């Protein structure tokens, strides 16, 4: 294979070859190459197929703006990554890469038929092509679209890599290490300020790496760069981060950085994180992001071998690679001429320079003549040929009056284009900084900043090297000064720099039918100039609408190379100036960023904390299945060997009803409310009246929001006149305490009350069943457990198993029950002691599922399951819990609003299915008439539904419009395949007289 490497050129280490593969073929590149430069050195331009039309594509650029050259990289099991830009992917020994978006092969791709069917894929094709017939949508269109959509293949195995993250603070953060960024970092660094300098590339230098002509302070650009690097490395107060992309700029000078640590290494250390996400809080920020070259828009501008001229120059000067043996230049900007000259000087035959502008400065013309390069100024390009690589370019003269003359075909193997340069304003835009339109340059520039930031260099529209250095130095010094350091801007002398100018274009003039031209604006999403004009003709006038309709700028490159061309064409089509049409919003991240980097350490067990009770370990050892309840994991049921969940729950229920069960209720939220005004505070927070509750007694408490809807409930004990032991739902604990704090701190700061969360201080063991008292009687000291002394809804302090306890006599099952609160550290010991002592009664540990069934049999609600934030006490059948004599409590006033008293409110009822074996699905919708036409009127839904072992049939609760008045009626529950019927009943299914509570 012919080599396109030029031995004496470039910065890659030509003494250090590396071997890599692309689509299974083996290639050799050099250390310092990107995949793009290494493939180009091997004469490979065809790198992938386009997204929509599957057109063959090559490398458009040499940087992170690349829209075409997306490849899959495979670094071993679980380490496949799609959509890596070949232009920033560093090659190393053993790198394996594949092209994307084609079948069966890159060179022969069936999907390319889309290219011939382009009329189906015009702007808004999603909304047009696949509309009719309606029945085709589910079965035909959607599967095809989903199958064809997406770029690259997603990896399917878990990512074995680790990702790090860290915070950092600095005085001055400099983004970009081109001339402006380097000058800024040097002056800020010299002031003693703490500086972080970041650059997305593997080495510092930015545009300097691609230039060879200009000199700085009497040195060559590269010599100066070497000195600048050494100077920065010698400053202890300066941190230089390469391979690090500033991905987002957030409030108060917080900048997100993604540092790539191991992707460039053939053998990364086993324990090294792959990437590190930095969150840098900077006192001052200097943005020196540089600029991106604009493509020209003409038919066939996407053929492999058609490339940005500045990128071709980068490949030549930085990587020592000529992108062709017979390139043609097409440009409207002087900078492309420099690419032509550099190539010609390197011995490449430049076939022609086609400049759109009729007049080009004399010194460029002279240089071209001296190098023997033909110049066609005032010409246009109207087409290209070549199937998998450009073979010729069709050029036409354009008269002063704009008439396109007859075409001439020029053979070439590369076409290097330049439409000028666009400042990178992405990070500045993240901060909502104002953008100013520069009419002469047809570009947006950073205007007034919203953050403590400065822009410098090409990213600020300052393109000359001398001016960029001066602006960078000034920005660095000013930033350091604002951060409190004495700083001075250095001055630089630049020699040999040409003043470059350019003109701006929309689509290039052509003599061909523009309605058939594929002149690409957005290469990654396959959007052409005519798509944008079509969108405007169809009525889309706002740039945000045009963007979404055509998808221009919506690909993973966020339109880095396409936005301004798209804007110029849209502005022409809607006949409004570009700044009035405006730019679409830039959003972080600047370049695609891995999910791994964002997740950082927060994955697997560290994704979320798992709260465990003191008794959790016992449950685990005794074979419990667990379920998550808010952040807690709770024992769900305790299956015996070979037992199904259904059988285990039925056994646990039976045991509680017939003898004795034990349940870990430690997750209940607990709040200690103490102070002289404790009862008054309780009166205001809960619906119930607390004044007359005697110490030693419990009461069910109901809490509303100010809107009158149920927020939480729980059993509350009064220990002394000034001390309440409040319990809340497991998931509601923090919310309830927060709400109490809110009222206490901001509405009633005069009340003398103190609130303390004690959820984790108490372990709670619930004992339920006819034998509950028998079990604890011998174990309790200091409390008379007789029914008279310690009736249902009592609380007392004493000892159990020798440790202090707050003993509640309370039941959430309808059986004789106790909740034994002991200090958390004794929880497991007491549990084990009760379990041992309970063997004589066949004591059965049970989990949350059995608890749910038992409470449902009694019609006890679970807040959040049977209520949903729109349920009033009356809706839930809890009107009795309201202290009607109280003048006020949170939510009271709302209960008398007209809407809260309507007869057709959804009310909680019981349901008994006609077929006793049918257990309805929770959440199933309820209708009154099952034969009505679709869509049916839904009058409520099932909230709880279980198999009741005690009753030998299913039971359910539901909320139904006007439900209470419907008792005895039959309702219908349509489910896929079958409609169930059920009778509306009361909510208490078992022991309605509550005889068992005091048995």
């Amino acid at each position, binding site marked *: 294979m012919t080599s396109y490497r030029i031995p004496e050129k470039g910065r890659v280490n030509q003494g250090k070859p590396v071997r890599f593969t692309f689509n299974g073929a083996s290639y050799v590149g050099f250390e310092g190459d990107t995949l793009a430069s290494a493939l180009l050195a091997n004469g490979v331009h065809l790198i992938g197929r386009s997204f929509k039309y599957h057109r063959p594509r090559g490398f458009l650029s040499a940087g992170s703006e690349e829209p075409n050259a997306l490849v899959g990289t495979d670094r071993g099991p679980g380490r496949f990554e799609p959509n890596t830009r070949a232009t920033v992917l560093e090659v190393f020994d053993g790198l394996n890469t594949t092209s994307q978006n084609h079948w069966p092969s890159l060179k022969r791709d069936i999907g390319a038929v889309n290219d011939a069917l382009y009329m189906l894929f015009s702007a808004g094709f999603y909304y047009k092509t696949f509309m009719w017939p309606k029945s085709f949508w589910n079965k035909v269109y959607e599967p095809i679209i989903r199958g064809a959509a997406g770029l690259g293949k997603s990896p399917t195995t878990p990512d074995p890599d680790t990702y790090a993250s860290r915070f950092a603070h600095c005085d001055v953060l400099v983004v970009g290490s081109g001339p402006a960024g380097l000058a800024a970092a040097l002056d800020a660094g010299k002031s003693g300020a703490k500086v972080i300098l970041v650059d997305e590339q593997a080495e510092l230098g930015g545009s300097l790496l691609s230039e060879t002509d200009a000199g700085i302070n009497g040195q060559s650009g590269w010599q100066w760069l070497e000195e600048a690097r050494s100077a920065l490395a010698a400053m202890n107060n300066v941190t230089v981060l390469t391979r690090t992309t500033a991905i987002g700029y957030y*409030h*108060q000078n917080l900048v997100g950085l993604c540092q790539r640590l191991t992707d460039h290494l053939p053998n990364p250390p086993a324990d090294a994180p792959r990437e590190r996400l930095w969150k840098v809080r900077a006192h001052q920020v200097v943005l020196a992001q540089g600029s991106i070259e604009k493509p020209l828009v003409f038919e066939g501008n996407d053929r492999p071998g058609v490339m940005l001229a500045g990128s071709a120059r980068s490949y030549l000067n930085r990587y020592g690679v000529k992108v062709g043996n017979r390139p043609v230049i097409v440009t409207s900007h002087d900078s492309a001429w420099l690419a032509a000259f550099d190539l010609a000087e390197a011995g490449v035959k430049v076939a022609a320079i086609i400049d759109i502008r009729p007049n080009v400065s004399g010194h460029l013309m002279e240089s071209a003549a001296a190098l023997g390069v033909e110049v066609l100024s005032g010409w246009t390009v109207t087409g290209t040929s070549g199937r998998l690589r450009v073979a010729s370019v069709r050029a036409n003269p354009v008269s002063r009056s704009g008439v396109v003359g007859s075409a001439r075909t020029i053979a070439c193997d590369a076409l290097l284009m330049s439409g000028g340069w666009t400042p990178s304003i992405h990070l500045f835009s993240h901060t*909502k900084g104002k953008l100013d339109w520069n009419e002469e340059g047809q570009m947006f520039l950073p205007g007034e900043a919203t953050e403590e930031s400065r822009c410098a260099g090409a990213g600020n529209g300052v393109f000359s090297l001398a001016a960029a250095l001066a602006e960078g130095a000034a920005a660095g010094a000013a930033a350091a000064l604002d951060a409190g350091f004495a700083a001075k801007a250095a001055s630089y002398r630049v020699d040999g720099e040409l003043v470059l100018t350019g003109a701006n274009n929309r689509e290039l003039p052509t003599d061909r039918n523009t309605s058939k031209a594929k002149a690409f604006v957005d290469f990654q999403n396959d959007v052409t100039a005519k798509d944008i004009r079509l969108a405007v003709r169809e009525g889309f006038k706002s740039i945000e609408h045009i963007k979404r309709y055509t998808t221009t700028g919506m690909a993973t490159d966020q339109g880095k190379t396409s936005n301004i061309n798209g804007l110029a064409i849209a502005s022409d089509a809607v006949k409004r100036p570009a700044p009035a049409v405006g730019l679409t919003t830039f959003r972080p991240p600047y370049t695609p960023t891995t999910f791994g980097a964002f997740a950082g350490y927060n994955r697997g067990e560290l994704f979320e904390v798992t709260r465990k009770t003191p008794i959790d370990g016992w449950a685990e050892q005794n074979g419990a299945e667990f379920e998550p309840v808010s952040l807690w994991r709770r024992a769900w049921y305790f299956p015996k060997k070979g037992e199904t969940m259904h059988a285990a729950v039925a056994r646990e229920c039976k045991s509680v009803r017939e003898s004795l069960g034990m349940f870990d209720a430690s997750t209940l939220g607990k709040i200690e409310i103490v102070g002289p005004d404790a009862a008054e505070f309780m009166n205001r927070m809960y619906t119930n009246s607390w004044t007359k509750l005697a110490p030693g007694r419990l009461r069910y408490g109901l809490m509303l929001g100010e809107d009158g809807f149920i927020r939480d409930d729980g059993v509350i004990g009064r220990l002394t006149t000034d001390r309440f032991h409040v319990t809340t739902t497991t998931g509601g604990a923090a919310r309830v305490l*927060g709400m109490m704090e809110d*009222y206490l701190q*901001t509405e009633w700061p005069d009340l003398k009350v103190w609130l303390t969360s004690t959820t984790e201080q108490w372990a709670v063991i619930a004992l339920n069943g006819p034998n509950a008292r028998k079990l604890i009687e011998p174990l309790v000291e200091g409390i008379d457990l007789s029914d008279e002394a310690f009736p249902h809804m009592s609380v007392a302090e004493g000892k159990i198993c020798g440790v202090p306890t707050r003993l509640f006599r309370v039941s959430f099952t309808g059986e004789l029950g106790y909740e034994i609160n002991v200090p958390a550290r004794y929880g497991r010991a007491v549990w084990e002691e009760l379990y041992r002592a309970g063997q004589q009664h066949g004591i059965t540990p049970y989990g949350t599922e059995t608890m749910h069934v038992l409470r449902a049999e009694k019609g006890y609600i679970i807040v959040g399951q049977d209520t949903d934030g729109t349920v009033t006490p009356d809706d839930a059948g809890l009107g009795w819990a309201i202290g009607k004599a109280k003048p*006020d409590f949170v939510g*009271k*006033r709302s209960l008398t609003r007209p809407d809260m008293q309507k007869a057709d409110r959804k009310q909680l009822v019981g349901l008994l299915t006609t077929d006793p074996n049918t257990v309805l699905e929770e959440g199933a919708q309820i209708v009154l008439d099952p034969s009505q036409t679709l869509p049916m009127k839904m009058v409520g839904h099932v909230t709880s539904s279980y198999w009741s072992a005690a009753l030998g049939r299913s039971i359910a609760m539901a909320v139904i419009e006007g439900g209470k008045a419907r008792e005895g009626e039959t309702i219908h529950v349509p489910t896929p395949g079958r409609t169930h019927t059920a009778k509306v009943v009361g909510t208490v299914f078992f022991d309605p007289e509550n005889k068992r509570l005091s048995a």
Partner: protein
Amino acid sequence: MLLIRCPYCEAERPELEFTYAGEAHIARPADPSKLNDDEWKTHLFIRSNPRGTHFERWRHQHGCGRFFNAVRDTVSDKFAMTYKAGLPRPTETELEKARS
């Protein structure tokens, strides 16, 4: 991520430590039963939702636990100032001073 100054801790802390708690300076009526339905509706549901200066409450949930008031611009997200619960709404002059 915002940096928010807790007026009780007298320190700037990252947003992660705080929770938002709605519009400020909406006092619960001393006797809600005195309000007619319309007045109660206004108290309960009607908020100013301005574009620009917003008086709002925050809680230093994972710090001192206190509720406090803040003045934030809903467009730029910039805080002009924070102040303790119970203090009156700052005047325009005080806000100007805080912003500069």
